[in-house]
């Protein structure tokens, strides 16, 4: 297969670059016992600290601790005003990219998070990169979400989405 001869315009537009660092809308996540148990079950945990409040307290936790990868559940309210989904995606690349893969996630824990906690979080795009790989041209979008409890940062999640 021969490479295209004409130089392609970059996927990343100036409008996209302008979104780097701009904090998105703040959302609220509840960490509650039922969801901790449901998440623990879905990821196969058998340690009773994720299910039994007495076991959690006996092990020194305030309440059921969050299993790795769980940072609360956003509150769903069908009556709340909805954002236009295309607006929520932000400015789009110069050529349409149909597929999306999760390229990776890192969570930094700055405090223990347990059932009963209410977290607020806001996400911003921290980096945009275009590259070529085995799956063709790719746009790698890095975003950071900062989770706070009573104003204190308790976790920072950094995610990479690959669009291609």
């Amino acid at each position, binding site marked *: 297969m021969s490479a295209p001869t004409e130089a392609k315009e970059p996927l990343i537009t100036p409008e996209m670059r302008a979104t780097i660092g701009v904090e998105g809308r703040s959302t609220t996540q509840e960490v509650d016992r039922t969801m901790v148990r449901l998440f623990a*079950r*879905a990821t196969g945990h058998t340690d009773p600290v994720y299910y039994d409040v007495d076991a959690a307290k006996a*092990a020194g936790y305030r309440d059921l601790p969050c299993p790795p990868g769980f940072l609360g559940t956003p509150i769903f309210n069908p009556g709340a005003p909805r954002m236009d989904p295309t607006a929520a995606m932000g400015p789009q690349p110069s050529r349409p990219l*149909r597929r999306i893969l*999760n390229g990776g996630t*890192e969570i930094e824990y700055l405090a223990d998070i347990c059932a009963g906690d209410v977290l607020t979080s806001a996400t911003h795009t921290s980096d945009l990169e275009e590259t070529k790989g085995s799956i063709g041209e790719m746009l790698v979008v890095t975003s950071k979400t900062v989770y706070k409890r009573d104003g204190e940062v308790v976790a920072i999640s950094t995610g990479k989405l690959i669009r291609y």
Partner: protein
Amino acid sequence: MTLKVGDKHEAVVIEKVSRTHTTKYAGASGDYNPLHHDDGVAQGLAGYPSIFAHGMLSMGLTGRMLTDWLGPVALRKFGVRFTRQVWPGDTLTSKGEVISVGEYNGEPVATIKVWTENQNGEAVVEGEAVALNA
């Protein structure tokens, strides 16, 4: 438990991934992307051979190997890359090995290389964890 460089742990974290597993994870995480439960969408719209598991399910399973080894809230940092998709029928084994010990934010910690392999020995998750080591 005090960890030292070279300490290792591994565990089978899921056997024969099924649509029930991905549906459970969808409900628990709130990620209802149909690519993870609806073969029609995965094949028709996106051209995949079938549904595949959420990357974050693999991360959660890999995390379970760590918390079973180290305790529920020992983790200070846990980061992974998803290097290969996980398909129905796959069986995953998560592995960890301590690569250094030191301090992080004033606490004694161990840095652990983590990875999860499918039944063919191919890595589906690769990453690193920093855990309290006291």
